[in-house]
């Protein structure tokens, strides 16, 4: 966790977001912000609207009401690839890699938004295209080194165990060198050791590259250990927002999320 997070240095702010699908209200009047350089967690029980929230930030869903401010500017209606260009990268709850391609190639696709050479010069691998690819490859190799996945560099990702695929997906998101990294349940389905590794990587990414991270997570223990601030959703509504300790002791949260009785 970065000690250098400044309170008024806001990277992303969502204001009064409401999203509904027909009669189903997925999100209702949600507001919170993400500060530069912090690890921000969004938690909540199943169906609370966590992934919807991420999809809104990501530009995949468009809320009926509310505003999104990114990097000090009001963001207008945008498609996901435009949002990506703006500097927001993400991973998915169900891994969304190109299974038949190698780890290396998957990471290279993460660089796509940074590439400028046209299709023909890329095919011929001449001039600027060649220079560019070498540059991008260098960056990708740094990420491979960072995530310690050298041994699977040339393995098709479909053949990799689940935990490794998750790591490759994180790598692809990192390859985009974004300002904000959205992680949708990065530890879901992992065993304890894989979880610990992933926690280490999330913290290292935050520390080494200064990347701001917003993550959704089920595992309360993990969330409380690695995030600076936590926002809690339940049935599309915001229940609480604050430091892990504040959230942990919030009775509404205990009721809704942990389901522990108290009197």
């Amino acid at each position: 966790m970065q000690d250098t997070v400044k309170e008024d240095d806001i990277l992303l702010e969502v204001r009064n977001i409401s999203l509904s699908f027909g009669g189903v209200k997925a999100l209702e009047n949600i507001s919170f912000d993400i500060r530069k350089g912090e690890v921000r967690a969004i938690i909540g029980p199943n169906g609370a609207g966590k992934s919807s929230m991420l999809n809104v930030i990501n530009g995949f869903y468009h809320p009926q009401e509310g505003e999104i401010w990114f990097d000090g500017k009001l963001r207008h209606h945008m498609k996901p690839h435009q949002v990506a260009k703006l500097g927001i990268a993400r991973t998915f709850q169900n891994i969304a890699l190109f299974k038949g391609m190698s780890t290396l190639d998957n990471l290279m696709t993460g660089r796509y938004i940074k590439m400028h050479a046209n299709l023909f010069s890329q095919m011929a691998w001449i001039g600027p295209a060649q220079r560019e690819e070498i540059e991008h490859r260098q960056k990708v190799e740094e990420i491979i080194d960072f995530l310690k996945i050298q041994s699977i560099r040339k393995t098709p990702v479909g053949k990799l165990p689940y935990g490794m695929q998750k790591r490759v997906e994180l790598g692809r998101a990192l390859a985009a060198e974004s300002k904000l990294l959205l992680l949708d349940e990065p530890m879901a389905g992992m065993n304890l050791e894989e979880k610990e590794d992933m926690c280490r990587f999330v913290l290292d990414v935050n520390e080494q590259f200064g990347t701001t991270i917003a993550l959704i997570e089920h595992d309360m223990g993990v969330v409380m250990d690695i995030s600076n601030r936590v926002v809690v959703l339940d049935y599309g509504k915001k229940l609480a927002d604050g430091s892990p300790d504040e959230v942990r002791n919030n009775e509404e949260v205990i009721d809704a999320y942990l389901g522990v009785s108290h009197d």
Partner: protein
Amino acid sequence: MNDTFPKLLLRNARQFADRPAIREKDLGIWQTWSWQEMHDEVLDFANGLASLGLKRGDKLAIIGTNRPRLYWGICAAQCLGAIPVPVYADSVAEELRYVLDHAEASIVLAEDQEQVDKVLEVKQDVGHVTGIIYDDTRGLKDYPESFLHDFAEVQVRGRKHAKEHPDFLQQEIEKGQGSDIAIILYTSGTTGKPKGVVLTHDNVLITSLNSAKEDRLTEKEDMLSYLPLAWVGDHIFSYGQAYVTGMCSNCPESQATVHWDIREIGPTYYFAPPRVFEQLLTNVMIRMEDASRLKQRLFHHFMEVAKRCGTDILDGNHVPLMDRIAYKIGDLLVYAPLKNTMGFSRIRVAYTAGEAIGPEIFDFFRSLGVNIKQLYGQTEAAVFITAQPDGEVYADTVGKPSPEVEVKITDDGEVIYKSPGVFQCYYKNDEATREAKNEEGWVMTGDAGYFDDKGHLKIIDRAKDVGKLKNGALFAPKYIENKLKFFPEIKEAVALGRDMDYVSLIVNIDLDAVGNWAERNNIAYSSYQELAAHSRIYAMIKANIEQVNRDLSEDSVLSDCQIHRFLILHKELDADDGELTRTRKVRRRIIAEKYDVLINAFYSGATQCQISTEVTFEDGKKGTIDGDIRIEDTETYEPLKAAS
């Protein structure tokens, strides 16, 4: 005189200036340092260490995997007359604490954050550590400790130090002598605390020089440095021999990528323990199962050819012309591509040591033209005690005494030696030194062995496990058991016979291998016990034992160890029942107590024996297995040569 490693570095920088000295795969690309570049890096770092206060006689602990900078740390410390102390990278904090404390290390060179964290954890218990230097900066930039230094930053300090004291380092290097302590290597030690083996420059340098000459190693060799830095073998192969010959050590990208990296480097000189070769052979066989029909037939046809004449061609023996031609075609179609996928295309010399290697594994690689040889060594000897010369390679020996090494067998059958590589002492442990080395400089190996007719040393067992039969002949149970365990049908074997008239054997069959065979031969069975008692299984095991007896009959020393009687046990030996250790070593004493009924039956001539054994199930419950066990006699053979 180039009698120390720093002096050799200066020589190599002049003599092999532009030749590669060390490579490391980083960011997917092999980075190379020439001898001149490495010389500069080492000297800068040595100056930096001096500016941090490291001086003659101080210790520099080095912890991490095979990284160029850690190898440079070894030489840099030696430049100052300080003593490098490498520590195994996977040591837990407690082991690290022990070594740092015992060796009185003053500065620690650590590979990365993981290792730095370990050092920090134990630092307050270890008073004399004044500084920590790290290679990989990742995750470390926000550590507040002022005694933490980045490797590159230490080199910057070193360059400044060199400007202020231009002659300092040169003088320090010249002060060094061959009799100075070069390194302290802590042996991992299966029992008790690790012991620090003190080796001088002479020990390491002369041994490296002799062994390099023996195998005609030159500056053109490439060697893969992937075994632990703190292990004497890596120190000799990747450091000692590299400095002596000017060859290049190659550091893999990570431990997990070694099998890719070896293909890219194609080493000419290589070391691996037997299990690596075993694994490689298994992989080849599994992948051949999946290959197309044509490829399979080609493979099996040409492997037959290789079996027939491959080793003879490698050893330069006479081979008929037709076989030579067939072998050449096989090389084009099968052997060369196969060697290429394993990274063995360019190998001139490969060594294996540490434990017995299965003869079929050994012959497989040699028949392909990979010159694997065996050696026998110890940390206390700076590795080389014996090694197999080219053209005299056998699966069951460890070779002839290395140059300038004297080897003797004591009356008890223990192997002892004297050599220029013999260690000075165990650091701060005179008692252990006296136990291992006598006044005349002979070192006890703790291994029992003998010289065969060809003058090759054979190691048979740990000396304390070797006994005698009633007639006084040598009885080496583990040697016999190992021979039997090379058969896939036999999982465990226990040889009995100490102070008895003849040797008997208790066998455990391998349920997977034998079960598979039973299925193919329509033999129905419901349990291990039933399968084990089957007469055809008995016949199969009997044939295996007789094969071993034939081998033993040709052995001049162990021909009396032929097995006279055997039985197949009605249950599998199990660690839960205390019969094996957790690492699957046989516990002889417990087996002797538990099965004394069977042992009595062996030597009373009975052919049947009733036994009831208590077993512990996996859930901790106990039960008994009863059974009648058949004891059968086996054929024994006249010794080919009477033992003299």
